[in-house]
């Protein structure tokens, strides 16, 4: 066989997925089996209903439409250009073609025998993943298993931009002592300090007679709880130790260790044999170990935030978090992890902002500042899905007070919110254009007013109410008395229970943005205005999914799950018959979120508007595939909530 010719074919195929994932050896095997065919404009490569040929096609040059006849008219369902793979579904499903392959321009095709590809599918997981990720959106021949495409986030990665930031590697990268300094109960503080000094370590673990950890004393504890508090050194360690201790399994992966420390603001985390404090200690990780291994880690940033009251510095740290986000995305860190880190950072900033505000305002309202309140994040921040600093959406709820005290109490919380928002804006967040913020008197209300709001929206579901509902139903308590937020949630379920038809209206609202299926060559892009020729990923891809998830979770009366992926995951367990669809929807949402964040970082915007031309072929394909579950979800909503019978 001629190497020149085989190499020429290889060279072409290698440029396009899924061939780009093949090893040189496998690609050679594929290339040698390829056949070239030429069709001219107007010919059909295959027709709907034809038995599948023994090969699928890669378009070398020209263009091909995948079409369907509808009342004698040709409807183009998809468009293939150079490098596009088509005619695969019929092969994989071993059944007739579901569309026509119409030649739109003179086309040279590579026909790849499916036999050789069967081998490839078995040997290369990326390729099977690529096919599993729903080859041609909307075609249901092979059930697209998007849950697999969770891993497809890898495909969104630009292969050339590996910064090699080892943020998410195995624990080998994290060096921590496995010899843990410990002492028994009854040891004096003085003795413990001496041991720490001898071993030159910053902490000592107190163990029981079995050697299981019961508490910990750190350098900081020695300083604050012993010396500063004037406690004599003869006092026993158990008197001052922090107890119980937080432990994790010694084989926990790095993200788990990381997240546990970040979420609990821990400086030391003890690793034990079985992960509980009822087993032997195997090591101790300090935040210092983490810092050493990761110069720009979230823990460092949160630590930094916790130690400053300077707004400029807070902004600087939040900017660094954005850089970190870029690294995370490029390094394929799971998006739920990324989102929870970023939410955590945002939450810390919000908490700091509230504390700063209290310091400023409280002295003028000595009575009112004792009224319990809760600062709420709404919308995407409420759902813990805000990766970039997009618009602020928040609100404040406070405990009901007697009528005569209400004006002054309200004045206090409005003044407080005003300060909070100003701090947040100074930290680089953008004000909400429709003023859904706590400093808007309308959204800074006592619990009873909030309950009235929700009752009103549910009982009079007009356009405005539904819009409000979609924003305000996704609230999450960030600071303050969380029971107030819980009461709000219970109230919502109660009123919905009394007025079930509301869900139908919400469903109708969720169907307002149909997925951009059946697009031609590109995505549905904006026709005019500032974002002409751009694709609105928020409106057309993310909102339909977030709306559907909210509605479905409401219909199941599930409390406390505020996040779109988590909601879909929960739904998958609640409705096993639809589990595959919900898992796909969760994956699709992840893909959109990731893509939006990448776009936002690249363009320095919110990432909402994506220029389809700037996306790689694979990214376009993935994005297209991710629309499929939206369509199916909307069908579920239509049937389940009988939206066809709801007047507009």
């Amino acid at each position, binding site marked *: *066989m*001629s*190497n*020149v*010719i*085989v190499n*020429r*074919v290889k060279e072409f195929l290698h440029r396009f997925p899924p061939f780009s994932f093949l090893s040189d050896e496998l690609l050679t095997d594929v*290339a*040698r*089996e*390829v*056949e*070239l*065919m*030429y*069709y*001219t404009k107007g010919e059909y490569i295959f027709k709907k209903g034809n038995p599948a040929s023994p090969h699928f096609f890669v378009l070398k*040059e020209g263009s091909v439409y995948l079409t369907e006849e509808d009342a004698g008219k040709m409807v183009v369902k998809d468009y293939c250009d150079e490098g596009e793979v088509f005619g695969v579904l019929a092969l994989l499903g071993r059944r007739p073609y579901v569309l026509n392959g119409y030649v739109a321009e003179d086309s*040279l095709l590579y*026909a790849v025998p499916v036999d050789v590809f069967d081998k490839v599918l078995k040997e290369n997981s990326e390729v099977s993943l690529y096919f599993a990720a729903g080859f041609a959106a909307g075609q249901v021949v092979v059930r697209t298993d998007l849950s697999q495409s969770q891993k497809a986030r890898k495909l969104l990665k630009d292969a050339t931009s590996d910064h090699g930031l080892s943020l998410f590697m195995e624990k080998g990268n994290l060096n921590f002592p496995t010899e843990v300094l410990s002492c028994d109960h009854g040891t004096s503080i003085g003795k413990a300090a001496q041991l720490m000094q001898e071993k030159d370590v910053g902490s000592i673990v107190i163990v029981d007679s079995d050697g299981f950890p019961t508490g910990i004393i750190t350098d900081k504890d020695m300083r604050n709880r012993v010396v500063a508090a004037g406690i004599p050194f003869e006092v026993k360690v158990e008197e001052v130790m922090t107890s119980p201790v937080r432990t994790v399994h010694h084989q926990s992966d790095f993200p788990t260790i990381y997240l546990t420390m970040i979420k609990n603001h821990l400086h030391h985390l003890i690793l034990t044999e079985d992960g509980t404090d009822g087993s032997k200690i195997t090591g101790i990780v300090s935040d210092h170990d983490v810092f050493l291994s990761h110069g720009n880690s979230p823990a460092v940033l949160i630590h930094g935030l916790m130690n400053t009251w300077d707004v400029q510095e807070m902004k600087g740290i939040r900017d660094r978090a954005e850089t970190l986000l870029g690294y995370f995305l490029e390094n394929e860190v799971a998006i739920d992890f990324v989102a929870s880190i970023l939410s955590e950072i945002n939450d810390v900033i919000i908490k700091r902002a509230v504390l700063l505000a209290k310091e400023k305002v409280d002295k003028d309202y000595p009575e009112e500042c004792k009224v319990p309140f809760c600062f709420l994040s709404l919308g995407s921040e409420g759902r813990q899905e805000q990766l970039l600093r997009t618009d602020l959406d928040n609100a404040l709820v406070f405990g009901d007070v007697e009528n005569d005290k209400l004006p002054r109490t309200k004045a206090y919380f409005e003044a407080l919110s005003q300060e909070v928002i100003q701090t947040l804006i100074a930290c680089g967040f953008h004000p909400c254009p429709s003023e859904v913020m706590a400093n808007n008197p309308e959204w800074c209300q006592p619990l009873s007013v909030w309950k009235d709001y929700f009752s009103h929206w549910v009982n009079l579901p007009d356009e405005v109410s539904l819009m409000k509902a979609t924003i305000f139903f996704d609230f999450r308590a960030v600071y303050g008395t969380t029971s107030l937020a819980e009461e709000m949630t219970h109230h919502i379920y109660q009123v919905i229970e009394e007025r079930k038809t509301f869900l139908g209206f919400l469903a109708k609202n969720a169907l307002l943005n149909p997925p951009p299926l059946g697009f031609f060559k590109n995505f549905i892009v904006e026709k005019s205005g500032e974002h002409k020729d751009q694709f609105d990923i928020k409106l057309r891809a993310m909102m339909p999914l977030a709306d559907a998830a909210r509605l479905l979770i409401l219909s199941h009366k599930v409390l406390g799950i505020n996040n779109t992926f988590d909601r879909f995951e929960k739904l998958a367990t609640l409705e096993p018959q639809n589990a595959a669809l919900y898992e796909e929807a969760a994956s699709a949402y992840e893909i959109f979120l990731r893509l939006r964040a990448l776009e936002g970082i690249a363009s320095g915007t919110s990432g909402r508007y994506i220029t389809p031309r700037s996306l790689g072929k694979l990214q376009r394909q993935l994005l297209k595939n991710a629309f499929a579950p939206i369509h199916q979800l909307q069908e579920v909503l239509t049937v389940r909530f009988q939206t066809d019978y709801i007047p507009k």
Partner: protein
Amino acid sequence: MSWWQIFRKRPMKSAMVKHYEEHFTKPISKKLPISELTFVVVDTETTGLDPKKDHILAFGGIKITNNRILVQSSREQFVHSKKKSASSIKIHEIVQPRNAVSPREFVRGFLPYLGSDILVAHHAGFDLAMIEKIGRPFGLRKLHNPVVDTGDLAMRLEHGIHYDPSRINLRDYSLDKLCERYKIPIHDRHIAAGDAFLTAQLLIKLLKEAEKKGVVTYGDLMRW
């Protein structure tokens, strides 16, 4: 043939040539659709352009059947040569052929590969002459395969069947020019296999053009 050659001893027909000639007992039916034919597209790189003095250095071939180019069927072979020509090396850059075979070995592999398929080449006359020359010591007198010249086919399609060759600028029918005109990206030019691959792509495009002009059977294609 000159008169004195009658007295020259002709090389004995070798078994491989006899075997090759056995393919041609039955002619291809004129009614057979082009889509059912098998073509073997060939190209040679030679030490020069004079079939009397020069000989083959490299051979490339690829088959087309059912209007499909089969990569699997492609062949590439280098032939030992005593003659080195600076001018031809400049074109094809074959200096030290790797895996080169003797002329005998080459012919032994080539004839069965050719079989009775329709031989296709660009400016076929030259390649044919070179191939017949290398086969002569083994008793090959002539290639019996039907021949399609992609240059001639292109002229016929572009100027009609009764074209007047004297009125055509032959330069427009070089492989390079035709590839350009038929939008075939040029790669691996002046490598026998590469040229054969280009010629094969040209042929499937020309055959599609031919079909539109009513050239659909073997008979239609070979009617010059």
